């Protein structure tokens, strides 16, 4: 009964939004985290503290600020993004980007610093060196990716506020659970909760499999 067309549509939308948001976070967070880990510039540790604070950013606060920005009365109101999946992706990138960045920086800093010297000594270019370091730190980097995905697939505050929980458009698993709980449909809400956990588990299982295979 629970696996009807609408639940399927909500599940796919949740996965699309969170996967895209995590992907974008990785795209920005990996280079930025690398810069924070290896770079030597003024204000580096301050930026790192900012990123580490951002790892605990409350989704509902992110949602509030993104909503204010995207409302028709807001500065970006003319882009008509409020209550669209794009709005949710924007909010989720803001939530997961610090997670990916912070864990990337930590992963690279945990590497033996002599490795960098050795790579330079072998004549590696800057890009080659970074590539080698990423490969070396691939286990914690995949963990960073999983943490980033986990932070967005599970959040509800921002999705509710900037997405609007609109049926067939921006309703995702977490907001659907809030709605069904509010309606008093506790059994359906629990079923959706189990579905969400199962999907999160499957994604992490796949990523862990890649991670552990590369560990050998």
């Amino acid at each position: 009964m629970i696996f009807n067309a609408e639940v399927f549509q909500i599940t796919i939308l949740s996965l699309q939004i969170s996967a895209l948001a995590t992907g974008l976070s990785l795209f920005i967070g990996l280079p930025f985290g690398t810069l924070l880990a290896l770079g030597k510039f003024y204000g580096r540790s301050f930026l790192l503290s900012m990123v580490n604070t951002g790892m605990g950013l409350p989704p509902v606060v992110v949602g509030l600020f993104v909503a204010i920005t995207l409302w028709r009365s807001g500065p970006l109101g003319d882009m008509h993004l409020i209550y669209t999946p794009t709005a949710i992706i924007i909010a989720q990138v803001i939530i997961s980007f610090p997670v990916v960045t912070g864990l990337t920086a930590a992963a690279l800093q945990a590497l033996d610093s002599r490795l960098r010297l050795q790579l330079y000594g072998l004549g590696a270019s800057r890009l080659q060196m970074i590539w080698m370091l990423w490969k070396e730190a691939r286990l914690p980097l995949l963990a960073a990716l999983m943490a980033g995905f986990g932070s967005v697939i599970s959040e509800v505050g921002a999705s509710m506020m900037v997405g609007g929980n609109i049926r067939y458009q921006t309703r995702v698993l977490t907001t659907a659970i809030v709605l069904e709980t509010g309606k008093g449909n506790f059994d359906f809400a629990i079923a959706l909760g189990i579905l969400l956990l199962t999907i999160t588990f499957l994604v992490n299982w796949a990523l862990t499999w890649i991670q552990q295979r590369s560990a050998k």
Partner: protein
Amino acid sequence: MKHARITFLLLTIFALALTGCGGATSAPATEAPVAMTEAPAAPANPNLILATTTSTQDSGLLDVLVPMFEEQTSYTVQTVAVGTGAALKMAEEGNADVLLVHAPASEKALMDAGWGKDRFLVMHNDFVIVGPAADPAGIKGTPTAVEAFQKIADAGSDFITRGDDSGTNKMEISLWGKTTADPNGQAWYIDSGQGMGATLTITSEKQAYTLTDRATYLANKENLDLEILVEGDAALLNVYHVITVNPDKWPKSNYDGAIAFAKFMTDPATQKVIGEFGVDKFGQPLFFPDADKTDADLGLE
């Protein structure tokens, strides 16, 4: 050495934070005995769970009434504001002691099934249809809500439904049932799945139509780009009842507290407060006291 110093610094900050919290929590404790002396003897079970709808909470009415009740009776009220569907479910599952809800048909079913013990008429407010000033479907001044809904459907203008099984949602669905249109599955029929406040925000952003209780609309009016387009239809009355949860079904429920709350809500002094609530802020009352009336007076059978 450096690490030891940082650890020390962090510990100092935590210690300061903790003493700060301690100072804050000790403050209310000194006020408590003063309130106790004015109130009658404490009831055996002072905790009362009130399940109510988001509309009473969002309008601010409960922020006035609940402290009054607590002071008069020394009960502590835990207010849970949910959709009417969830509030009724809470009564069925024994998770609430008393309800303040507005979905007469569902309430009757609850009483017939024996989950509720007593039911009292408390007050009403009314629903209005709001929409953009441009009014693309041309519903302004339409005498009845059903005709207005028909026009919206015929024009295919965006309409936001709460879709959350709340009292407002149930009222809206019953109105659609009296038109020839079936909004379900239509592109212009947008399901927000959220409370009235959030749904009004979405309606304003999308410049669509929606059905709202007057109180929530007035309370949010300044943030909305919406106008009242249809009002005054007798079919748009929103009637609130207090229902006590049946202690025969749920012996653990606080029936004494529930009856005390029902008495308080129908008391003439409280009814006067209800009738005056919101006048100073909005220039018109948000709720109309009805404890001296019967369901039949309000057009409910």
